[in-house]
């Protein structure tokens, strides 16, 4: 089994090497040229009024709430996975053990869904585009060139 994880490590190392190698190659291929353009990522042609401002994300703090609920459900999924793995064996053993396992799983999932219902009822999962702003139209037609 250690070999398997050594493979994982090998893949990660090769990926990291590829990225750094490409960057090195790019540097050599480019040659040395003094930078002529400003290093800021803000558009140079901006009018003075829209001078670059320190980026703040005016977004709904509910993103954080979503992340909390995600962590809870992630842990729940992490526990459901080993149960899912052995359910088939429990079902094969006898009808009784299968039903017992089923009831345990349903109880677990049911309790979790109560939490989700609570969150939903209180509108915690309704993340808004801009804090306190009205929502713009739902969909936007995509007609641009695929890059």
């Amino acid at each position, binding site marked *: *089994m*250690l070999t398997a*994880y*050594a493979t*994982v*490590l090998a893949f990660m190392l090769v990926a990291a090497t590829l990225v750094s190698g490409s960057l090195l190659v790019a540097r050599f291929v480019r040659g040395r040229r003094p930078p002529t353009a400003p290093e800021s990522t803000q558009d140079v042609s901006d009018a003075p009024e829209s001078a670059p401002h*320190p*980026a*703040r*994300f*005016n*977004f709904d*703090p*509910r*993103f*954080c*709430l979503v*992340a*909390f*609920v*995600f*962590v*809870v459900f*992630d*842990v*729940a*999924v*992490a*526990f459901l*996975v*080993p*149960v*899912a*793995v*052995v*359910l088939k*064996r*429990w079902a094969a053993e006898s009808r009784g053990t299968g039903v*017992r*396992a089923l009831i*345990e799983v349903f*109880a*677990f*999932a*049911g*309790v*979790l869904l*109560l*939490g*989700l219902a*609570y*969150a939903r009822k*209180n509108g*915690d999962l309704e993340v808004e585009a801009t*804090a*306190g702003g009205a929502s713009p139209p739902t969909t936007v037609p995509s007609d641009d060139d695929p890059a």
Partner: protein
Amino acid sequence: MARVDIAGVAFVALALLTLGSAAIVAFARSVMHSAAGLLGVLCGVAGFYALLSADFLAAVQLLVYVGGTLVVFLFAVMLTLTSARAASSNEPIATGRRAAGWATIALAFALVTIALDTIWPLGEKLVQLPTTAKLGHALLGPYALPFELLALLLLATTVGALAIARSAVKVGAEP
């Protein structure tokens, strides 16, 4: 051809990764750098789990800690800090440095002495085996009650976190 113990090398490398990242978490000036260090620590620990044949735990460590906890942390930081404030958000405290230094040295000395002098009992030889099925059987069998109680615990966590955060959201609704 060298006879290299790959598991030993991996252990040392993971230890360096974990401890180095932990140092970054502690000493970095920017909270975001600390978060990146935390990523290193969590990945290192996941690696240790894999070395110790706890493969399921390694995957869950990445899934829940890196994918969940670290993401929550990053969201929280990004929501509240501007870039200017973020760069120096983790400044070390100026007072009490010397006392802290001496305490650290004393503690380090004590720990090293303990580590070297204790006769550590050797554990049984590790057999590399998968663990997911064992956990599943345990969760459905002997540990069924903790499994269900865990669901209740998660429910409590959800409700509690949302209740606390919701009031904070309402209070601090202005960006």
